[in-house]
Protein backbone atom coordinates (compact mmCIF):
# COMPACT_ATOMS: atom_id res chain seq x y z
CA UNK A 1 0.00 0.00 0.00
CA UNK A 2 1.47 3.29 -0.95
CA UNK A 3 1.74 6.30 1.29
CA UNK A 4 -0.84 9.04 0.69
CA UNK A 5 0.24 11.69 -1.76
CA UNK A 6 -0.15 14.53 0.72
CA UNK A 7 2.62 13.08 2.84
CA UNK A 8 5.12 12.78 0.05
CA UNK A 9 8.12 15.03 -0.23
CA UNK A 10 11.50 15.29 -1.89
CA UNK A 11 12.99 12.73 0.52
CA UNK A 12 14.22 9.76 -1.52
CA UNK A 13 11.81 6.90 -1.15
CA UNK A 14 13.45 4.02 0.58
CA UNK A 15 12.74 0.88 2.44
CA UNK A 16 8.96 0.50 2.07
CA UNK A 17 7.78 -1.57 -0.88
CA UNK A 18 5.36 0.17 -3.21
CA UNK A 19 2.77 -2.60 -3.07
CA UNK A 20 1.31 -4.67 -0.27
CA UNK A 21 2.80 -7.92 -1.56
CA UNK A 22 1.76 -11.55 -1.33
CA UNK A 23 3.05 -12.13 2.19
CA UNK A 24 1.06 -9.20 3.54
CA UNK A 25 -2.09 -10.45 1.82
CA UNK A 26 -1.62 -13.88 3.39
CA UNK A 27 -0.97 -12.27 6.77
CA UNK A 28 -4.19 -10.28 6.55
CA UNK A 29 -6.12 -13.40 5.53
CA UNK A 30 -4.70 -15.24 8.55
CA UNK A 31 -6.28 -12.75 10.92
CA UNK A 32 -9.10 -11.60 8.65
CA UNK A 33 -10.80 -14.97 8.17
CA UNK A 34 -11.37 -15.72 11.87
CA UNK A 35 -12.36 -12.12 12.48
CA UNK A 36 -14.87 -12.21 9.62
CA UNK A 37 -16.27 -15.49 10.99
CA UNK A 38 -16.66 -13.97 14.45
CA UNK A 39 -18.25 -10.81 13.09
CA UNK A 40 -20.68 -12.81 10.95
CA UNK A 41 -21.70 -14.92 13.97
CA UNK A 42 -22.33 -11.78 15.98
CA UNK A 43 -24.18 -10.14 13.11
CA UNK A 44 -26.50 -13.14 12.77
CA UNK A 45 -27.22 -12.92 16.49
CA UNK A 46 -27.83 -9.17 16.20
CA UNK A 47 -30.44 -9.75 13.51
CA UNK A 48 -32.72 -11.17 16.21
CA UNK A 49 -33.21 -7.64 17.43
CA UNK A 50 -34.90 -6.67 14.19
CA UNK A 51 -37.23 -9.66 13.97
Amino acid sequence: MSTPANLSSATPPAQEPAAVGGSAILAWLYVGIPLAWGVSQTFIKALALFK
Partner: protein
Amino acid sequence: MANDSLLDRSRTIAGPGYNRWLIPPAALAIHLAIGQAYAFSVFNKPLGALISGDVSNPAPDDWTPTQIGITFSIAIVLLGLSAAVFGKWLERVGPRKAMLASALCFGGGFLIASLGIHLHNIWLLYFGYGFVGGIGLGIGYISPVSTLIKWFPDRKGVATGMAIMGFGGGAMIGSPLANNLMNHFKDSAPQGVAPTFIVMGLIYLVFMQFGVWTIRVPADDWKPAGYVPSTEHNEMITTGNVSADNAIKTPQFWLLWVVLLTNVTAGIGVLETASPLVQETFSDGAMGAGRGVTAAAAAGFVGLLSLFNLLGRFFWSSASDRLGRKTTYAIYFGLGILLYALVPTLGRSLQLTLFVVVACVIISMYGGGFATVPAYLSDMFGKYQVGAIHGRLLTAWSTAGVLGPLIVHTLHEHAQEQGLKGAAAYQNVFYTMAGVLVVGLLANLAVRPVKEDYYEKGPVTIEAGGH
Protein backbone atom coordinates in the same frame (compact mmCIF):
# COMPACT_ATOMS: atom_id res chain seq x y z
CA MET B 1 25.74 -10.31 18.72
CA ALA B 2 26.52 -13.98 18.33
CA ASN B 3 24.77 -14.90 21.56
CA ASP B 4 21.52 -13.22 20.68
CA SER B 5 18.58 -15.57 20.63
CA LEU B 6 15.85 -15.38 18.02
CA LEU B 7 13.68 -13.72 20.64
CA ASP B 8 15.98 -10.81 21.34
CA ARG B 9 15.05 -7.35 20.22
CA SER B 10 18.23 -7.07 18.16
CA ARG B 11 17.09 -10.05 16.09
CA THR B 12 13.75 -8.45 15.29
CA ILE B 13 15.05 -5.29 13.64
CA ALA B 14 13.57 -5.22 10.15
CA GLY B 15 15.86 -5.23 7.19
CA PRO B 16 15.54 -2.89 4.23
CA GLY B 17 12.34 -3.37 2.28
CA TYR B 18 10.38 -4.96 5.11
CA ASN B 19 6.70 -4.34 4.48
CA ARG B 20 5.23 -2.44 7.42
CA TRP B 21 1.74 -3.72 6.52
CA LEU B 22 2.79 -7.07 8.01
CA ILE B 23 2.89 -5.49 11.46
CA PRO B 24 -0.85 -4.88 12.00
CA PRO B 25 -1.71 -8.55 11.27
CA ALA B 26 1.03 -9.58 13.71
CA ALA B 27 -0.53 -7.33 16.33
CA LEU B 28 -4.01 -8.59 15.50
CA ALA B 29 -2.90 -12.19 15.98
CA ILE B 30 -2.23 -11.30 19.61
CA HIS B 31 -5.23 -9.08 20.24
CA LEU B 32 -7.75 -11.35 18.52
CA ALA B 33 -6.61 -14.13 20.85
CA ILE B 34 -6.52 -12.27 24.15
CA GLY B 35 -9.79 -10.48 23.32
CA GLN B 36 -11.40 -13.83 24.16
CA ALA B 37 -11.40 -12.59 27.76
CA TYR B 38 -14.46 -10.47 27.03
CA ALA B 39 -16.32 -13.64 26.09
CA PHE B 40 -15.63 -15.38 29.40
CA SER B 41 -19.29 -15.05 30.36
CA VAL B 42 -20.07 -17.78 27.83
CA PHE B 43 -18.68 -20.21 30.44
CA ASN B 44 -20.73 -18.85 33.35
CA LYS B 45 -23.68 -21.23 33.15
CA PRO B 46 -21.73 -24.38 32.18
CA LEU B 47 -19.19 -23.76 34.96
CA GLY B 48 -22.06 -23.38 37.41
CA ALA B 49 -23.49 -26.79 36.57
CA LEU B 50 -20.48 -29.09 36.52
CA ILE B 51 -21.87 -31.27 39.32
CA SER B 52 -25.60 -31.13 38.68
CA GLY B 53 -25.22 -31.35 34.91
CA ASP B 54 -28.26 -29.08 34.56
CA VAL B 55 -27.63 -25.37 33.98
CA SER B 56 -31.13 -24.49 35.14
CA ASN B 57 -30.86 -26.50 38.35
CA PRO B 58 -27.39 -26.23 39.96
CA ALA B 59 -26.41 -28.55 42.83
CA PRO B 60 -25.51 -27.09 46.25
CA ASP B 61 -21.83 -27.84 45.62
CA ASP B 62 -21.83 -26.20 42.21
CA TRP B 63 -19.93 -22.93 41.83
CA THR B 64 -22.13 -19.83 42.20
CA PRO B 65 -22.30 -17.05 39.58
CA THR B 66 -20.41 -14.78 41.99
CA GLN B 67 -17.61 -17.32 42.47
CA ILE B 68 -17.30 -17.78 38.71
CA GLY B 69 -17.46 -14.03 38.04
CA ILE B 70 -14.41 -13.50 40.26
CA THR B 71 -12.32 -15.31 37.63
CA PHE B 72 -12.94 -12.57 35.08
CA SER B 73 -12.37 -9.84 37.66
CA ILE B 74 -8.98 -11.33 38.60
CA ALA B 75 -8.03 -11.49 34.92
CA ILE B 76 -8.91 -7.83 34.31
CA VAL B 77 -7.11 -6.65 37.44
CA LEU B 78 -4.04 -8.68 36.44
CA LEU B 79 -4.27 -7.20 32.94
CA GLY B 80 -3.78 -3.72 34.33
CA LEU B 81 -1.17 -4.71 36.90
CA SER B 82 0.97 -6.78 34.54
CA ALA B 83 0.78 -4.14 31.82
CA ALA B 84 2.05 -1.63 34.37
CA VAL B 85 4.76 -3.90 35.82
CA PHE B 86 6.08 -5.42 32.59
CA GLY B 87 5.90 -2.31 30.37
CA LYS B 88 9.54 -1.31 30.80
CA TRP B 89 10.68 -4.90 30.41
CA LEU B 90 8.78 -5.02 27.13
CA GLU B 91 10.50 -1.87 25.88
CA ARG B 92 13.88 -3.42 26.69
CA VAL B 93 13.44 -6.93 25.32
CA GLY B 94 11.25 -5.99 22.37
CA PRO B 95 7.84 -7.17 21.21
CA ARG B 96 8.75 -10.73 20.14
CA LYS B 97 9.78 -11.97 23.55
CA ALA B 98 6.84 -10.18 25.13
CA MET B 99 4.39 -11.71 22.66
CA LEU B 100 5.79 -15.17 23.32
CA ALA B 101 5.45 -14.62 27.07
CA SER B 102 1.88 -13.48 26.50
CA ALA B 103 1.06 -16.55 24.38
CA LEU B 104 2.56 -18.91 26.96
CA CYS B 105 0.71 -17.26 29.83
CA PHE B 106 -2.61 -16.91 28.03
CA GLY B 107 -2.60 -20.40 26.48
CA GLY B 108 -1.05 -21.92 29.61
CA GLY B 109 -3.67 -20.22 31.76
CA PHE B 110 -6.38 -22.08 29.89
CA LEU B 111 -4.56 -25.38 30.45
CA ILE B 112 -4.14 -24.81 34.18
CA ALA B 113 -7.77 -23.71 34.42
CA SER B 114 -8.91 -26.87 32.64
CA LEU B 115 -7.25 -28.89 35.39
CA GLY B 116 -9.09 -26.78 37.95
CA ILE B 117 -12.38 -27.48 36.16
CA HIS B 118 -11.62 -31.20 35.93
CA LEU B 119 -10.81 -31.36 39.67
CA HIS B 120 -13.60 -28.89 40.51
CA ASN B 121 -11.06 -26.73 42.30
CA ILE B 122 -11.97 -23.08 41.86
CA TRP B 123 -8.62 -21.86 43.15
CA LEU B 124 -6.92 -23.53 40.20
CA LEU B 125 -9.43 -21.84 37.90
CA TYR B 126 -8.61 -18.48 39.50
CA PHE B 127 -4.89 -19.13 39.28
CA GLY B 128 -4.96 -20.43 35.72
CA TYR B 129 -7.39 -18.24 33.81
CA GLY B 130 -7.41 -15.29 36.21
CA PHE B 131 -3.82 -14.93 37.39
CA VAL B 132 -1.59 -16.56 34.76
CA GLY B 133 -3.98 -15.80 31.91
CA GLY B 134 -4.43 -12.25 33.19
CA ILE B 135 -0.67 -11.68 33.02
CA GLY B 136 -0.83 -12.91 29.41
CA LEU B 137 -3.60 -10.40 28.76
CA GLY B 138 -1.63 -7.47 30.12
CA ILE B 139 1.64 -8.24 28.35
CA GLY B 140 -0.17 -9.13 25.13
CA TYR B 141 -2.30 -6.00 25.17
CA ILE B 142 0.64 -3.61 25.26
CA SER B 143 3.16 -5.73 23.34
CA PRO B 144 2.48 -4.39 19.82
CA VAL B 145 1.51 -0.82 20.71
CA SER B 146 4.85 1.00 20.70
CA THR B 147 6.02 -1.06 17.73
CA LEU B 148 2.97 0.01 15.72
CA ILE B 149 3.52 3.65 16.65
CA LYS B 150 7.12 3.41 15.45
CA TRP B 151 6.10 1.81 12.14
CA PHE B 152 3.24 4.24 11.53
CA PRO B 153 4.39 7.68 12.72
CA ASP B 154 2.20 9.14 9.98
CA ARG B 155 -0.95 7.22 11.06
CA LYS B 156 -0.60 6.40 14.73
CA GLY B 157 -4.32 6.32 15.35
CA VAL B 158 -5.04 4.05 12.39
CA ALA B 159 -2.32 1.62 13.41
CA THR B 160 -3.19 1.30 17.09
CA GLY B 161 -6.90 1.34 16.21
CA MET B 162 -6.42 -1.74 14.04
CA ALA B 163 -4.72 -3.68 16.83
CA ILE B 164 -7.05 -2.66 19.61
CA MET B 165 -10.01 -3.34 17.33
CA GLY B 166 -8.75 -6.91 17.45
CA PHE B 167 -9.33 -7.03 21.19
CA GLY B 168 -12.99 -6.25 20.53
CA GLY B 169 -13.11 -8.82 17.75
CA GLY B 170 -11.57 -11.49 19.95
CA ALA B 171 -14.76 -11.86 21.97
CA MET B 172 -16.74 -12.36 18.77
CA ILE B 173 -14.51 -15.29 17.87
CA GLY B 174 -14.12 -16.65 21.39
CA SER B 175 -17.80 -16.88 22.20
CA PRO B 176 -19.03 -19.00 19.24
CA LEU B 177 -15.81 -21.01 19.31
CA ALA B 178 -16.39 -21.92 22.97
CA ASN B 179 -20.04 -22.76 22.34
CA ASN B 180 -19.18 -25.03 19.42
CA LEU B 181 -16.45 -26.79 21.38
CA MET B 182 -18.59 -27.28 24.49
CA ASN B 183 -21.30 -28.74 22.30
CA HIS B 184 -18.76 -31.06 20.69
CA PHE B 185 -17.36 -32.29 24.02
CA LYS B 186 -20.61 -32.35 26.01
CA ASP B 187 -20.73 -36.15 26.16
CA SER B 188 -17.11 -36.63 27.22
CA ALA B 189 -16.93 -34.26 30.22
CA PRO B 190 -19.35 -32.30 32.42
CA GLN B 191 -20.76 -29.59 30.16
CA GLY B 192 -17.77 -30.18 27.87
CA VAL B 193 -15.95 -27.31 29.59
CA ALA B 194 -12.62 -28.86 30.62
CA PRO B 195 -11.73 -30.23 27.16
CA THR B 196 -12.93 -26.95 25.64
CA PHE B 197 -10.42 -25.09 27.82
CA ILE B 198 -7.63 -27.45 26.70
CA VAL B 199 -8.43 -27.05 23.02
CA MET B 200 -8.87 -23.28 23.26
CA GLY B 201 -5.59 -22.95 25.15
CA LEU B 202 -3.76 -24.85 22.44
CA ILE B 203 -5.52 -23.00 19.61
CA TYR B 204 -4.61 -19.61 21.07
CA LEU B 205 -1.05 -20.69 21.84
CA VAL B 206 -0.55 -21.69 18.20
CA PHE B 207 -2.52 -18.80 16.69
CA MET B 208 -0.47 -16.22 18.58
CA GLN B 209 2.79 -17.65 17.24
CA PHE B 210 2.10 -15.86 13.97
CA GLY B 211 2.41 -12.55 15.79
CA VAL B 212 5.49 -13.71 17.69
CA TRP B 213 7.44 -14.64 14.56
CA THR B 214 6.16 -11.94 12.20
CA ILE B 215 6.65 -8.92 14.41
CA ARG B 216 9.62 -6.68 13.60
CA VAL B 217 10.81 -3.36 14.96
CA PRO B 218 11.98 -0.69 12.54
CA ALA B 219 15.63 0.38 12.44
CA ASP B 220 16.29 3.55 14.43
CA ASP B 221 16.68 5.66 11.29
CA TRP B 222 13.72 4.13 9.44
CA LYS B 223 10.95 6.33 8.12
CA PRO B 224 8.00 5.49 5.88
CA ALA B 225 8.84 6.16 2.24
CA GLY B 226 8.29 9.81 1.47
CA TYR B 227 7.35 10.65 5.03
CA VAL B 228 8.51 13.96 6.38
CA PRO B 229 7.46 14.87 9.93
CA SER B 230 5.27 17.94 9.89
CA THR B 231 7.22 21.11 10.44
CA GLU B 232 4.02 22.87 11.48
CA HIS B 233 4.22 23.46 15.20
CA ASN B 234 1.54 21.61 17.14
CA GLU B 235 2.00 22.09 20.85
CA MET B 236 -0.08 18.99 21.61
CA ILE B 237 2.42 16.75 19.82
CA THR B 238 5.72 16.70 21.65
CA THR B 239 9.10 16.69 19.97
CA GLY B 240 10.72 15.37 23.13
CA ASN B 241 10.74 12.00 24.85
CA VAL B 242 9.62 11.28 28.40
CA SER B 243 10.53 8.06 30.23
CA ALA B 244 7.86 5.96 31.89
CA ASP B 245 9.27 6.82 35.32
CA ASN B 246 9.10 10.54 34.61
CA ALA B 247 5.72 10.32 32.89
CA ILE B 248 3.96 9.24 36.06
CA LYS B 249 5.34 12.35 37.78
CA THR B 250 3.52 14.61 35.35
CA PRO B 251 -0.04 15.90 35.83
CA GLN B 252 -0.72 14.98 32.19
CA PHE B 253 -0.36 11.27 32.93
CA TRP B 254 -2.86 11.43 35.76
CA LEU B 255 -5.28 13.57 33.77
CA LEU B 256 -5.19 10.96 31.00
CA TRP B 257 -5.61 8.28 33.67
CA VAL B 258 -8.84 10.02 34.74
CA VAL B 259 -9.86 10.39 31.08
CA LEU B 260 -9.52 6.64 30.49
CA LEU B 261 -11.08 5.77 33.85
CA THR B 262 -14.20 7.86 33.25
CA ASN B 263 -14.69 6.79 29.64
CA VAL B 264 -14.44 3.11 30.56
CA THR B 265 -16.52 3.40 33.73
CA ALA B 266 -19.38 5.02 31.82
CA GLY B 267 -19.17 2.50 28.97
CA ILE B 268 -19.36 -0.38 31.42
CA GLY B 269 -22.58 1.21 32.65
CA VAL B 270 -24.15 0.44 29.29
CA LEU B 271 -22.50 -2.93 28.76
CA GLU B 272 -23.46 -4.21 32.22
CA THR B 273 -27.09 -3.21 31.87
CA ALA B 274 -27.66 -3.69 28.13
CA SER B 275 -29.63 -6.93 28.16
CA PRO B 276 -31.89 -6.33 31.20
CA LEU B 277 -32.23 -2.65 30.37
CA VAL B 278 -33.65 -3.21 26.90
CA GLN B 279 -35.89 -6.06 28.05
CA GLU B 280 -37.31 -4.27 31.08
CA THR B 281 -37.69 -0.90 29.36
CA PHE B 282 -39.34 -2.25 26.22
CA SER B 283 -41.28 -5.09 27.82
CA ASP B 284 -44.59 -6.49 26.65
CA GLY B 285 -46.23 -4.52 29.43
CA ALA B 286 -44.89 -1.25 28.08
CA MET B 287 -44.99 -1.94 24.34
CA GLY B 288 -48.13 -4.08 24.12
CA ALA B 289 -48.61 -7.84 24.10
CA GLY B 290 -46.18 -9.60 21.76
CA ARG B 291 -44.35 -6.35 20.88
CA GLY B 292 -41.83 -6.29 23.69
CA VAL B 293 -38.14 -7.10 23.41
CA THR B 294 -37.56 -10.83 23.97
CA ALA B 295 -34.49 -12.43 25.54
CA ALA B 296 -33.28 -13.43 22.04
CA ALA B 297 -33.73 -9.88 20.75
CA ALA B 298 -31.87 -8.56 23.82
CA ALA B 299 -28.99 -10.92 22.99
CA GLY B 300 -29.11 -9.44 19.48
CA PHE B 301 -28.89 -5.97 21.02
CA VAL B 302 -25.79 -7.02 22.97
CA GLY B 303 -24.32 -8.43 19.74
CA LEU B 304 -25.01 -5.17 17.95
CA LEU B 305 -23.23 -3.27 20.72
CA SER B 306 -20.23 -5.59 20.31
CA LEU B 307 -20.08 -4.75 16.61
CA PHE B 308 -20.14 -1.02 17.32
CA ASN B 309 -17.55 -1.48 20.06
CA LEU B 310 -15.31 -3.06 17.40
CA LEU B 311 -16.03 -0.53 14.66
CA GLY B 312 -15.66 2.41 17.03
CA ARG B 313 -12.16 1.34 17.93
CA PHE B 314 -11.01 1.68 14.34
CA PHE B 315 -13.25 4.58 13.26
CA TRP B 316 -12.60 6.96 16.14
CA SER B 317 -8.91 6.16 16.48
CA SER B 318 -8.40 6.75 12.75
CA ALA B 319 -10.43 9.95 12.93
CA SER B 320 -8.18 11.16 15.75
CA ASP B 321 -5.26 11.33 13.31
CA ARG B 322 -7.07 14.20 11.62
CA LEU B 323 -9.08 15.67 14.48
CA GLY B 324 -6.33 15.55 17.09
CA ARG B 325 -6.54 13.41 20.22
CA LYS B 326 -7.77 16.09 22.59
CA THR B 327 -10.60 17.06 20.24
CA THR B 328 -11.54 13.42 19.75
CA TYR B 329 -11.83 12.87 23.50
CA ALA B 330 -13.78 16.12 23.82
CA ILE B 331 -16.28 14.57 21.37
CA TYR B 332 -16.41 11.31 23.36
CA PHE B 333 -17.22 13.24 26.51
CA GLY B 334 -19.32 16.11 25.14
CA LEU B 335 -21.49 13.95 22.90
CA GLY B 336 -21.42 11.19 25.50
CA ILE B 337 -22.88 13.43 28.23
CA LEU B 338 -25.80 14.37 25.96
CA LEU B 339 -26.45 10.80 24.85
CA TYR B 340 -26.22 9.25 28.32
CA ALA B 341 -28.64 11.86 29.65
CA LEU B 342 -30.98 11.11 26.73
CA VAL B 343 -31.20 7.34 27.32
CA PRO B 344 -33.76 7.46 30.18
CA THR B 345 -35.96 9.85 28.19
CA LEU B 346 -35.89 7.56 25.16
CA GLY B 347 -36.76 4.65 27.44
CA ARG B 348 -39.71 6.45 29.01
CA SER B 349 -41.06 7.51 25.61
CA LEU B 350 -40.54 3.96 24.24
CA GLN B 351 -38.41 5.14 21.30
CA LEU B 352 -36.77 1.77 20.68
CA THR B 353 -35.06 2.58 17.38
CA LEU B 354 -33.54 5.81 18.66
CA PHE B 355 -32.61 4.07 21.88
CA VAL B 356 -30.66 1.43 19.94
CA VAL B 357 -28.96 4.05 17.75
CA VAL B 358 -27.89 6.09 20.79
CA ALA B 359 -26.57 3.02 22.60
CA CYS B 360 -24.55 2.04 19.53
CA VAL B 361 -22.96 5.50 19.28
CA ILE B 362 -22.19 5.46 23.00
CA ILE B 363 -20.51 2.09 22.81
CA SER B 364 -18.53 3.06 19.70
CA MET B 365 -17.02 5.92 21.74
CA TYR B 366 -16.28 3.52 24.60
CA GLY B 367 -14.25 1.37 22.19
CA GLY B 368 -12.76 4.47 20.59
CA GLY B 369 -11.47 5.60 23.97
CA PHE B 370 -9.38 2.45 24.34
CA ALA B 371 -8.00 2.68 20.82
CA THR B 372 -7.14 6.39 20.81
CA VAL B 373 -5.26 6.52 24.09
CA PRO B 374 -1.93 5.00 22.89
CA ALA B 375 -1.65 7.68 20.19
CA TYR B 376 -2.60 10.35 22.76
CA LEU B 377 0.20 9.11 25.01
CA SER B 378 2.65 9.11 22.11
CA ASP B 379 1.68 12.69 21.29
CA MET B 380 2.20 13.78 24.90
CA PHE B 381 5.27 11.76 25.92
CA GLY B 382 6.98 10.75 22.66
CA LYS B 383 7.49 7.22 21.40
CA TYR B 384 10.52 6.39 23.58
CA GLN B 385 8.69 4.36 26.26
CA VAL B 386 5.11 4.75 25.12
CA GLY B 387 4.41 1.03 25.57
CA ALA B 388 5.46 1.17 29.21
CA ILE B 389 3.51 4.39 29.82
CA HIS B 390 0.46 2.81 28.19
CA GLY B 391 0.87 -0.19 30.46
CA ARG B 392 0.81 2.00 33.54
CA LEU B 393 -2.23 3.88 32.27
CA LEU B 394 -4.14 0.62 31.93
CA THR B 395 -4.47 0.46 35.72
CA ALA B 396 -7.29 2.94 35.05
CA TRP B 397 -9.06 0.19 33.11
CA SER B 398 -8.70 -2.24 36.01
CA THR B 399 -10.06 0.39 38.37
CA ALA B 400 -13.00 1.07 36.04
CA GLY B 401 -13.62 -2.66 35.83
CA VAL B 402 -14.38 -2.61 39.55
CA LEU B 403 -15.90 0.89 39.82
CA GLY B 404 -18.29 0.67 36.83
CA PRO B 405 -20.20 -2.45 37.89
CA LEU B 406 -20.21 -1.25 41.51
CA ILE B 407 -21.92 2.03 40.54
CA VAL B 408 -24.37 0.25 38.25
CA HIS B 409 -25.42 -2.44 40.70
CA THR B 410 -25.61 -0.11 43.70
CA LEU B 411 -27.81 2.44 41.92
CA HIS B 412 -30.00 -0.17 40.26
CA GLU B 413 -30.59 -2.10 43.47
CA HIS B 414 -31.39 1.15 45.29
CA ALA B 415 -33.93 2.07 42.58
CA GLN B 416 -35.53 -1.35 42.81
CA GLU B 417 -35.82 -1.02 46.59
CA GLN B 418 -37.77 2.16 45.96
CA GLY B 419 -40.16 0.21 43.76
CA LEU B 420 -38.98 1.68 40.44
CA LYS B 421 -39.32 -0.50 37.35
CA GLY B 422 -38.42 -0.45 33.67
CA ALA B 423 -36.56 2.63 32.43
CA ALA B 424 -37.06 4.38 35.76
CA ALA B 425 -35.00 1.75 37.55
CA TYR B 426 -32.01 2.63 35.37
CA GLN B 427 -32.33 6.38 35.01
CA ASN B 428 -30.01 7.21 37.91
CA VAL B 429 -27.38 4.91 36.43
CA PHE B 430 -27.34 6.91 33.23
CA TYR B 431 -27.52 10.32 34.86
CA THR B 432 -24.65 9.32 37.16
CA MET B 433 -22.61 8.10 34.20
CA ALA B 434 -23.25 11.42 32.44
CA GLY B 435 -21.82 13.06 35.57
CA VAL B 436 -18.80 10.75 35.43
CA LEU B 437 -18.24 11.91 31.86
CA VAL B 438 -18.30 15.55 32.99
CA VAL B 439 -15.28 14.72 35.18
CA GLY B 440 -13.59 13.15 32.15
CA LEU B 441 -14.37 16.17 29.99
CA LEU B 442 -12.80 18.52 32.54
CA ALA B 443 -9.72 16.31 32.87
CA ASN B 444 -9.30 16.23 29.11
CA LEU B 445 -9.69 20.00 28.84
CA ALA B 446 -6.98 20.42 31.48
CA VAL B 447 -4.40 18.45 29.44
CA ARG B 448 -1.55 20.73 28.39
CA PRO B 449 1.83 19.96 26.81
CA VAL B 450 4.35 18.28 29.10
CA LYS B 451 7.04 20.59 30.48
CA GLU B 452 10.46 20.17 28.89
CA ASP B 453 11.95 19.54 32.37
CA TYR B 454 10.58 15.99 32.08
CA TYR B 455 12.19 15.30 28.68
CA GLU B 456 15.09 12.89 28.39
CA LYS B 457 18.33 14.78 27.93
CA GLY B 458 20.22 13.94 24.76
CA PRO B 459 19.39 11.25 22.23
CA VAL B 460 17.44 8.29 23.54
CA THR B 461 18.02 4.66 22.65
CA ILE B 462 15.88 1.64 23.36
CA GLU B 463 18.69 0.02 25.34
CA ALA B 464 18.89 3.05 27.59
CA GLY B 465 15.16 2.79 28.14
CA GLY B 466 15.47 -0.49 29.86
CA HIS B 467 17.69 0.51 32.70
